[in-house]
């Protein structure tokens, strides 16, 4: 892909993130920028409840949420930043070349899955159509 133009707010922000298996894994809550040679470049995406809170102006809440998410991850890694090289496609949704377990929303999902849902019988099968 090259030469394509996007409007950050219109085309990139708030788009659904989809992992390499087609699973939904959050939204593009913000874009990370970096200065290089006096120009501004998009270095990657920011996702997660903390990023959304920051975007809506609640900085303190956002920082706290990021910290909570990090605390829940066994490796204390920060999955809220997705570098551009893991973005496979930009269309009406954003496809990542990552698995959803590597994206910020996974923290919350996994915690709830392990501590709540797993205790309810039948959580391992989809009710078939």
């Amino acid at each position, binding site marked *: 892909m090259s030469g394509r133009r996007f409007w950050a*707010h219109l085309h990139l922000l*708030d*788009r*659904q*993130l989809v992992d390499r298996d087609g*699973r*939904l*894994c*959050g*939204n593009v*809550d913000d874009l990370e920028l970096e200065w290089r040679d006096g120009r501004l470049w998009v270095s990657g995406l920011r*996702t997660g*409840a903390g990023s*959304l809170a920051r*975007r*809506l102006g609640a900085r303190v809440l956002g920082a706290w949420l990021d910290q909570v998410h990090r605390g829940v991850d066994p490796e204390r890694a920060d999955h809220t930043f997705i570098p551009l090289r893991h973005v496979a496609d930009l269309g*009406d*949704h954003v496809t990542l070349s990552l698995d*959803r377990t590597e994206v910020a*929303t996974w923290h*919350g*999902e*996994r915690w*709830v*899955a392990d501590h*709540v*849902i*797993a205790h*309810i019988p*039948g*959580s*391992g*099968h*989809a*009710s*078939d*159509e």
Partner: protein
Amino acid sequence: MSRFLKIFLGVLTAIGGFVDIGDLVANAETGARFGLGLAWVVLVGVVGIVVYAEMAGRVAASSGRPVFDLVRERLGPRVALVNLLASFFINFLTLAAELAGVAIALSLLAGVSYVLLVPAVAFLVWVVVWRMSFGAIEHVFGIMGLALLVFVVALVHLSPDWTSMLHEATHPALPTEETPFTYAFFAIALFGAAMTPYEVFFFSSGAVEEGWTRRDLATNRLNVYVGFPLGGLLSLAIMAVASQVLRPAGISVGTLPQVVLPVAVVLGKVGLAVAILGVFAATFGAAIETGLSAGYTVAQYLGWQWGKFVRPRDAPRFHLVVLVSIVLGALFLLSGIDPIMVTEYSIVLSAAALPLTYFPILVIANDPEYMGTLTNGKVLNAIAMTYLCILTIVAVATVPLMIITKGGA
């Protein structure tokens, strides 16, 4: 299953699934107080929901995404958050009202106070959401809801003067006990009951759950164009029966048993039993839909995996929201709050929030990025735009009228 049978099933499901507790209460109450003087509002409301439900289904079939999912993309996270909070709150009230409806219907059979049945009902609703497939839920409760046809049977059995009924419907007159304000208030309540927001959120998420593509558009249109209006006729039957039986006797509708009372009067115990079955099915189905809608709206705003088409383990927070909503709804009822009042507030507030729901649908249905070649035609846009103006007027008038009439007293 043959294609024809599948379509037939879909239409029947749409008819039986159209009515929920809001429609039951609103139509019976207006029938008892205004006769058929507000019947035209039901017609206007049905056309409105047909137009917008078809759009919401088409959005889902073209883009593979339900409408609420796209609200954040098109309107931004702030506006979408306001939309989410308002929709979630109103949806919650509706969920509580539906749970109450199920409990009351069962209490009429069991002879115990409905409050005692609330926990069991909530548990049952949640178990069905958890284990039953999406398609099975829709079809089972939709078809069972056809038991409400007993209202039509009761009406016919009464052998009313059809000409004078038609005259009353086409020449709305203000009853002496009512004021223009109560008339307008009940018009808004009826309108809100017919065009409930959760229906479109649920409908478009459901379309994605069932994997609709462009090939299903024709079926979608058939269900909506045929099923919903026939469902609207069911609503009118409830209104007509109330106007024929309750109004002359001066009985107003303040409880759910009073909604089915006319059927008992006309058709006896058998009729009453069928009516209760219909109410049970309609409210149970609607409780499931509002429960799922709670999950859909939150999950879609935040980008979480949602839906019954994946294992619960793969959409854990979605299922948690559904579970918590049902539990909170039950707790809300156990506080002893009047379920009819909850129902009335839910439909009136739905009316106030209608533009929030329908404006994004109209914009998205015109967006070639999501719709490809299937954007709205000019005629459809004209109708939808007219409705949007009506919805805005209704929304603005709701709270003042609620205050002036003291909630329709």
